């Protein structure tokens, strides 16, 4: 039997994990089952029969070195689809009438979003230092160049995007605390 592999690009922001889950579930219904992904979100799927599959994403950079993490999920009937930059992709065939969830209460969902928030903050530490220092260096002729301007613009862009992402994640956390169903 030959395996047909299909590659698809799909980009998701870190705060759109629920949309990514839904997209992967739609692919599974159409018979495309996730095999691997590159860090730049190029997914590889294996073509097979369409299946009602639940995909769930966890974010935890520490579990890579802890074999008991995967064992616990596998014992509970989840299949590890892939790991990508701290994201752990889990899937499980959907049983009629049963909700498949890796997080069973809002407190643990909030903790996951705290970890994602930590990533955004971490990614911006060098950025924040640069943004703080650059305007001071702006007055020296060497850095007041075109390249300096582009670099400053890119950093400002990343900072603004991160602020937007962080606000989206904080909103999700507030909704979870208030008991709004996800």
């Amino acid at each position, binding site marked *: 039997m030959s395996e047909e592999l299909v590659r698809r690009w799909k980009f998701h922001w870190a705060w759109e994990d629920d949309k990514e889950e839904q997209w992967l579930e739609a692919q599974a219904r159409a018979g495309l089952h996730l095999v691997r992904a590159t860090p730049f979100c190029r997914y590889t799927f294996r073509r097979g029969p369409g299946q009602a599959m639940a995909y769930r994403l966890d974010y935890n950079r520490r*579990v890579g070195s802890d074999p008991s993490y995967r064992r*616990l*999920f596998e*014992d509970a009937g989840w299949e590890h689809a892939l790991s990508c930059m701290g994201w752990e992709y889990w899937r499980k065939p959907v049983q009629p009438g049963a909700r498949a969830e*890796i*997080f*069973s209460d809002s407190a643990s969902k909030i903790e*996951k979003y705290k970890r994602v928030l930590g990533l955004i903050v971490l990614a911006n530490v060098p950025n924040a230092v640069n943004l703080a220092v650059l305007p001071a260096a702006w007055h020296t002729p060497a850095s007041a160049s075109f390249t300096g301007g582009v670099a400053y613009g890119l950093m400002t862009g990343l900072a603004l995007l991160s602020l937007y992402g962080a606000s989206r994640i904080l909103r999700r956390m507030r909704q979870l605390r208030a008991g709004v169903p996800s």
Partner: protein
Amino acid sequence: MEIGKFLPLSEATYYVLLALDQPLHGYAVMQQVEALSGGVVTIGPGTLYGAFANMEKQKLIEKVGEEDRRKIYALTGLGRAVLGEQVRRVELMARSGRAYLRQHEGEAA
């Protein structure tokens, strides 16, 4: 160590501690929690993994073994004391609640 700061326990935490009265690995805890709660409480693996980490940090449980990539946990003395205090408080709540309802049974009719 002050016990009160751990209370009240969430429903999930309560049942996980209760299940760990005997040393168990994660999946056995999930099954035990479902049985102990009469099927009312089910715990997902992501939630349980985080709960283990938190409770271990709070010294309510401790790792007592590892088998086939499964970590086995059990209650610590502190965990047992916290669980006991939670049960005492819930019993008190249930007792006074029942007494209140009995007292006001006639009024509603």
